[in-house]
Structures are given as C-alpha cells and as structure tokens.
C-alpha cells in the first residue's frame, strides 16, 4: 500500500468519525393547530439561527388527533417526537408514568419564578417541572355591553349564576335572532363537560366523593343540570347540543349571542375587528358562582411543551422548549406581530407590561381568572382528585365523554335532566369500579 493510499484511507476514516459529531440534530415537534402555535412555527427561524446545528420538523395536528397520536407514541415508547404539545390534564398523569423528562437545567435567564403559580403547580410533580407552559387560559363571561344596556341588566365584575341566568333571559331577542346565552352543548370531555364541570364546581358540586363514588345523585348536580338545560331552552341558540367553541365563536362574532361563557382565549377573537362584527361592544366578567359558594369554576387549561422520555435528543429539545416559552420569545412575538399577539396566561411579567395591557383590554380579567383557579382543590367539597374543568385521572377522557353524551342529549330534549343524571351516575360508578377506584 503506497503512502498516498494510506493517507487517503486515513483521511476517509477521520472524516467518517467526524461526520456524526458534526451531524445536525433533527427535532420532531408535535403541536396543536391553533393561532399561537402556528405563529411559533413561523418564528422558529430565530431558534434555528441561534442553533444552526438543529433542524426542526413540524407535525401540526388538530387537538384530538394530536392527543391520540402522541399518546400512542409516548405510551409505546415509539420515539417519533422530541417535543410534544400536551395539556395540563396529561402532564401530571404522564409524569407519574415516567414518560416525560423533568425540565431541570433550564437556563438561568428562563426565570421559572415568573411562571404563573397556578400553572406552575399544575405542571409540576414532587417539585419538578415536567412541562413548560406555552399559553394558558381560564374561562370567563363575555357579553354584549350594548344588549345588556338595552335590556337593563348589569353583570358587574363577578356575577352570580342567578344574575347571569336572569340576564340571559332578559337579553334574548328571538325576533332579532339573538340568543341570550351561548354555552357548549357538544358532547365530549373537552367540550360540554369542560364547561359543565367548571359550572358544577361553582355550584359546590364535585365529580367524586372522598371514596371515589360519583356524585351525580346529589342536589348540587341536579341544580347544575336543571339550570343549564332550562336556560339553554329559554335563551340558547337552536341546535345548541351540537355547538362547541367554534360554533359559539361564530355566533358571537356575528352578533347572534348576547353572552358567551368560555375560554379566555376567545377574548382575542371576539375583539378582532377583522373577524368580529361586535369587536367594540364586548364586556367581560369573572366565571359566575352560585350564591354562597366561594368557587369560580376553577377552569385552568394550558398548552405546554414537554419532552418525551423516548427522545434521543433531550438537550436540543430542552433548548427548544426553553426558547419557545421564554420571555425572549414573548418579546419576539411583540416585536414581529404586536403585543396583542403575545401568548397569554403563562408569565406574571406579561401582565405587568404596560404595552401588553394597553393592547389587550381583556388582560386583567384573564389574569384574574387564571389566578382564581386552584387546580389542586377544584371543588369546595372534600375530594380525592385534582383538576378543574376535568378530573386528573386517566379514565376521565372516556367517562367524561360518556357523561357528556348524556348531558348533550338532555339539552337536545331527548332525555330529562333527571334521567341523564341517573345514567351518568350508573355509568361512572360502573367504570370507576372496573378501574379499581371503588372497592
């Protein structure tokens, strides 16, 4: 072998060894399709510019498909994703299973202390943060100030259910095609049951007693469902049993709803002058409570970025999560698209920012709603679970949807509220017994 051949072979061997060390890391990011996440995808060039050795692949899916897809992958340790977008419902359950990497070692300027306390608590287990919040939301009342004035009703900052239900009936103008109130009716644990679970919390009801026995046979749930069904019949839109967030949003934006109680994120849509015909006529109030019950529903939801334990690039994934949920990212969004577009509901500093408060008139109400949530004790009763508009147990998705179908049928007039509650009690008790909660 000549010296030249040896030299060439040596060079090849060195190159072969060097290539893996310099090879780019590819991060596959699974995310939900909503405005804030799509914006993140658009602005991710900032991250890749700062981390030129990292390439990003995006998998953007609708919420339910994403949940099914990511759950399958993470439970089987498929390892297809390096960063996943999950809700605060999944975080404690998955962290307990050991499916998520704890987010320790975040950069010093990340400022974990700046995260809203309620969210930080919901995303932590044993003092470790398992997901970083990208945006957070609670629920509140959005109403038409002009119609309230016309009907002579005043909701105030923190109305009771009696005030809200009365106002809904008074603001209804069927001749003009205006429904007094729009509420979720579509069956699903994240649809009507998100709203009804929060409403139940604010009525002093609970999903389960201390021994995990379902509580649908109690007086509180009876009051919840009767009030909900009757106000939907008197003041709700037609076909309310199939309305979810999007349908109610469309009705409100078109001026067909006098009042809408839903996620705080809706405030930015109903005040968007390009899309809403009532953008300058919207007032806000806290999620109602029943007289004498110190509980405003405890609705708390956040979309969070987490790192599956099956990832083969935890360091790059951690760097991405830190970038996307940092104060720097919020500033980047504000710089590129204005403060109104900043991802809401995750950091205290955002709500101390005068520019943001000026751009988002709903900011203070959103913060108040999020801060009012106590996910570690969502009901005033003695309960064995955490959550809020959901119960943080793996079985809740199936049980919540089955109960939601009963309640949706009650809104559609197919069954009486009492029948729906009896069925809900039976099916929940059966599933909880099967799952081993009820001995």
């Amino acid at each position: 072998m000549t010296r030249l051949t040896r030299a060439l072979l040596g060079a090849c061997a060195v190159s072969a060894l060097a290539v893996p060390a310099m090879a780019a890391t590819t991060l596959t990011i699974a995310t939900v399709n909503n405005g804030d996440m799509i914006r993140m995808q658009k602005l991710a060039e900032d991250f890749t510019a700062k981390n030129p050795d990292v390439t990003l692949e995006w998998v953007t899916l609708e919420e339910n498909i994403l949940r099914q897809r990511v759950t399958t992958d993470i439970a089987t340790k498929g390892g297809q994703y390096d960063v996943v977008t999950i809700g605060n419902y999944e975080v404690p359950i998955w962290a307990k299973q050991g499916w998520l990497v704890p987010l320790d070692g975040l950069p010093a300027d990340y400022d974990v202390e700046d995260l809203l306390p309620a969210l930080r608590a919901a995303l932590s287990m044993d003092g470790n943060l398992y997901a970083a919040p990208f945006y957070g939301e609670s629920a509140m009342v959005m109403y038409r100030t002009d119609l309230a004035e016309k009907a002579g009703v005043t909701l105030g900052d923190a109305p009771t259910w009696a005030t809200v239900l009365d106002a809904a009936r008074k603001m209804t103008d069927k001749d003009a095609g205006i429904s007094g109130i729009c509420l979720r009716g579509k069956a699903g644990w994240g649809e009507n049951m998100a709203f009804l679970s929060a409403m139940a919390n604010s009525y002093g009801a609970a999903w389960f007693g201390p021994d995990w026995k379902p509580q649908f046979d109690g007086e509180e749930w009876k009051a919840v469902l009767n009030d909900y069904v009757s106000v939907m019949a008197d003041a709700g839109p037609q076909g309310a049993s199939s309305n979810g967030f999007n349908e109610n949003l469309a009705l409100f934006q078109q001026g067909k709803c006098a009042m809408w109680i839903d996620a705080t994120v809706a405030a930015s849509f109903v005040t968007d002058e390009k899309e809403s015909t009532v953008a300058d006529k919207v007032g806000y109030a806290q999620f109602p409570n029943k007289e004498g019950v110190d509980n405003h529903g405890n609705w708390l939801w956040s979309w969070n970025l987490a790192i599956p334990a099956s990832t083969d690039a935890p360091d790059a994934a951690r760097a991405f999560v830190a970038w996307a949920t940092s104060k720097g990212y919020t500033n980047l969004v504000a710089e590129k698209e204005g403060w109104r577009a900043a991802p809401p509901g995750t950091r205290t500093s955002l709500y101390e920012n005068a520019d943001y408060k000026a751009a988002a008139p709903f900011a203070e109400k959103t913060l108040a709603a999020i801060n009012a949530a106590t996910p570690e004790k969502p009901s005033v009763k003695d309960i064995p679970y955490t959550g809020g508009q959901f119960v943080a147990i793996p079985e809740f998705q199936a049980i919540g949807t089955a109960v939601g179908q009963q309640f949706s049928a009650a809104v559609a007039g197919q069954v009486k509220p009492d029948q729906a509650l009896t069925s809900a009690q039976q099916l929940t008790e059966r599933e909880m017994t099967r799952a081993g909660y009820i001995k």
Partner: protein
Amino acid sequence: MQERSNYFRHFMNSVVISIGSTLLGLLVAVPAAWSMAFQPTRRTKDLLMWMLSTKMMPAVGVLIPIYILFQRAGLLDNRFGVMVVLMLMNLPIIVWMLYTYFREIPGEILEAARMDGAGLWNEIRHVLTPMAVPGIASTMLLNIILAWNEAFWTLNLTASKAAPLTAFIASYSSPEGLFYAKLSAASTMAIAPILVMGWFSQKQLVRGLTFGAVK
C-alpha cells in the same frame, strides 16, 4: 400555505404510498384471485367471506400491536411501512374485485392455453391478464383512491417524513379558532390530484366496473 407546510413532500408521499400499496396489493391479489376463480376448493367461499370480515374489524382495535411491531421493525414514519399496512387493509377488496372479474372469463380459454403448453405463469401473464385488463385497471384505480383517502393509519403511523396529504389536511383543522379559508384551500389541494386522475380515467373505471355485465 407552502410557507407553513411542505405540500410537495406530502403530495409525493401520497403518490408513492397509494401507487405502491396498490402495486403490492395486485402482486398478491392476482394469483390469489386466480386460484379462487379457477381452482376453487370447498373452503373458497368461506375464505372470501373471512377476508371480507376483516374489513369489519375497527382499525383502532389493532393500532397498538401494529404500532409496536412497526416501532421494533423501524417502520414508523416510513413510506414502505405505510404501503404494507394499506395493502393489507385493501387486500380483501382487491381480491374480491379481481375474483369477480376473473370468474367472468371462461375457464375453457385457460384450458386451451394449457393444452397448448402454457405453464401457470404464462397462463396468468399472457392469457388471463390481457383479458382482465379493464377489471385490473378499475381495481387499481379504486384502490389508489382508497389509499389516497385513508386517514387513520396514515395519521397514526407517520410523523413528518412519510406523512401524506391526509396529515396535511389534518394540520389545518382546529377546535379553537375559525380557519375555514385555509382549511378549504388545504382540502382543495389535497383532493385535486386524485380528482384530476379520476376525471381522466373515468372511461376505464366505468368500463372496468361494468366488465362482464350484460351489455
């Protein structure tokens, strides 16, 4: 739209997966349908019914086992893996359609070929296939359409590299926010290629579907 999603990658994945799964399916189904049509046994009818009955099983029931198998075989987010699954999903329909077409061909013609010294391969290749071209073509077209529109397996077994147009559409649907314009544009772009293909091949499709019927 191209700024947010790589349409052409999704499009190419759809083309490769739907055509690939169809060709793989035909490779298995033509001999299977031949044997059932021309060499039936007492159990052929039962076998056909069993094949059809597999279509009645909810796909989600076998998702986890198949997912784990794919993960171990390194076939997740892989076009060949999706091709194999779609081929298996559509195989009963391909076999049934081809079986029906083959039965319309008189067995005597094949017997004559055999008497002239044709072996099995030559019989299928030079006698049966040319006579059943309209049937095979329409089966192929129908299978391409089925594979193009399949959303459950393509969404569950792919992430980014092998994701076809079904994943492209799914990325524009949102439960929080009204993005109908983008969703409509994405849907149009996803169905346009198959619509154009259907338009150009409608003559063959109709001919194939009515093949053997009293005309």
